[in-house]
């Protein structure tokens, strides 16, 4: 009895601590949200104020109307197009490659795996120029292709992640499947994939967020305003040497977070519940 109440008290204290810390973690979001309702001239002067004295909804109106005659609706559409296709490409190619590296002992696999790790280690900054030359040769400048097509080769980060997860799946499964006359592709699609749903969803969520947030690639490859993605459009609203409508900028920053947060909240349960729906326990 005594131990039980001790345990309860412990859980209670833990909950308080975890929740208290959580509040600290979301402070920035609250701050951003509140700033998005402040008048532009107040953003810096009244930076410490968490609850604005006046709510300037105009920030959202002014921001949403975008620029060069294109509203944020178009930018959201562009971002969604690029992001969704990139996620699909990354998930397909990465799980395939990861399966080969984790489960198939084919000649050259160590070599290619090492190559893949090496591509992760080179700072991308020195690849900008040759990559641009390449896409320029392909005549892909000012199209979405440079942002989408490379995703269909998967990503080294995600391949490595999925490899690590697949290697946590008992090998006996493969053997029993082989005895059952289950082919490689069949095993991959029907048995392996369902088992690593948490990792696949993690991959998809990360890729979604990273592509959505990326502004440097869109900045380089997209020239015209009607092609701008949300992150690029927001970046184009702030310049430290020019007049900036900070209220509108923050309002659009809040809006741009909506899809990412929605994706995260919508998919996180698959990260958590994935395994329980499979029959691994047996």
């Amino acid at each position, binding site marked *: 009895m005594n131990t039980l109440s001790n345990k309860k008290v412990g859980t209670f204290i833990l*909950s308080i601590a975890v929740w208290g810390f959580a509040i600290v973690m979301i402070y*920035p979001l609250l701050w951003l949200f509140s700033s998005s309702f402040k008048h532009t001239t107040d953003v810096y002067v009244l930076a410490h104020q968490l609850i604005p004295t006046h709510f300037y909804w105009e920030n959202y109106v002014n921001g949403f109307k975008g620029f060069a005659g294109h509203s944020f609706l178009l930018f959201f559409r562009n971002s969604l197009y690029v992001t969704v296709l990139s996620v699909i490409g990354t998930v397909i190619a990465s799980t395939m490659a990861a399966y080969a590296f984790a489960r198939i002992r084919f000649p050259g696999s*160590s070599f290619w795996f090492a190559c893949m790790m090496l591509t992760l280690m080179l700072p991308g900054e*020195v690849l900008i120029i040759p990559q641009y030359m390449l896409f320029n040769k392909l005549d892909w400048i000012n199209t979405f292709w440079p942002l989408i097509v490379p995703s269909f*080769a998967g990503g080294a980060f995600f391949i490595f992640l999925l490899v690590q997860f697949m290697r946590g799946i008992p090998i006996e499964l493969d053997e029993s499947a082989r005895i059952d006359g289950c082919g490689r592709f069949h095993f991959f699609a029907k048995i392996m994939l369902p088992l690593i749903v948490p990792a696949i969803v993690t991959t998809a969520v990360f890729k979604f967020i990273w592509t959505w947030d990326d502004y440097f690639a869109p900045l380089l490859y997209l020239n015209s305003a009607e092609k701008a993605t949300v992150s690029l459009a927001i970046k184009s609203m702030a310049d430290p040497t020019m007049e900036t409508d900070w209220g509108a900028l923050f309002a659009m920053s809040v809006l741009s977070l909506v899809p990412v947060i929605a994706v995260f909240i919508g998919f996180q349960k698959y990260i958590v519940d994935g395994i329980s729906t499979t029959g691994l326990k047996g």
Partner: protein
Amino acid sequence: MRWLRNPDLYAGYAFILPWLIGLFVFSLFPIFFSLYLSFTDYDILSSPEWIGLGNYKEMFTDDPRFVKSAKVTLLYVFVSVPLRLSFALGIAVLLNMKLKGSSILRSFYYLPTLMGGSVAVIVMWGQLFGMNGAFNSLLKSLFGIQVSISWITDPSTALGSLIALSVWQFGSAMLIFLAGLKQIPASLIEAAKVDGAPAWQRFIRITLPLLSPVIFFNLVMGIIGGFKVFSEGMILTGGGPHDQTLFYVIYLYETSFRFLHMGYGSAMAWVLLLAVCLLTALVFRSSSLWVHYESKGNG
């Protein structure tokens, strides 16, 4: 020619084919081009000029800023990576414990990572830890200490603040740990419970070994990412004050795109690659001692 009849050969290459094509089409040329540039003097605007090992020689003999940037980065990696991973693991384990509202908590803990390095976060971070920021007011009201330090821009605290920021954005690592924890078969932990093993023993004996592939992943990626750290420093401090937060890649970028020594920047990139490669190889080597796999594979 027996290996040609190995069915695994075809299956293996069929599965990695999309990645392999991508490597050849999109990555190989840029990678080798940058290797070539590292032996040249290249100002981006005119053609590269071959100078052999000149860039590498200058780096190690005649460039105090290079040395400074290497030191700053090493310090950053060795402090921030262990801190962030322990944080991420600790919180992941807590969130895995079915506390009330754990799904909301997960979202709260992940939000800072979602917000990434947006303009808003930078402005906010500045006003939180600025000289008249919320943090200093908190210190004053809680402990009565009058602090007038601007945490991000003061030479003695700037690097520490960037480390704090990176620890605060532990969400990605946490999420990967969570996914890993969820993959541990509940039956194993139940069995240990029946055996009467206390919670901490179950954690050390079962959870940690089974989680080790994921810990390994987070460690390797943490090291690689740590050495390549760029945007956090670039947007918050720009490497300043007087190079106190001059991360390796910030200097590389500055050299390549501001000073127009792209050849030198490329050489720096390849030196970084070698260093990170060696370190990662060490971690991979050590993995046989502490990483527990259900199946044998590469690595």
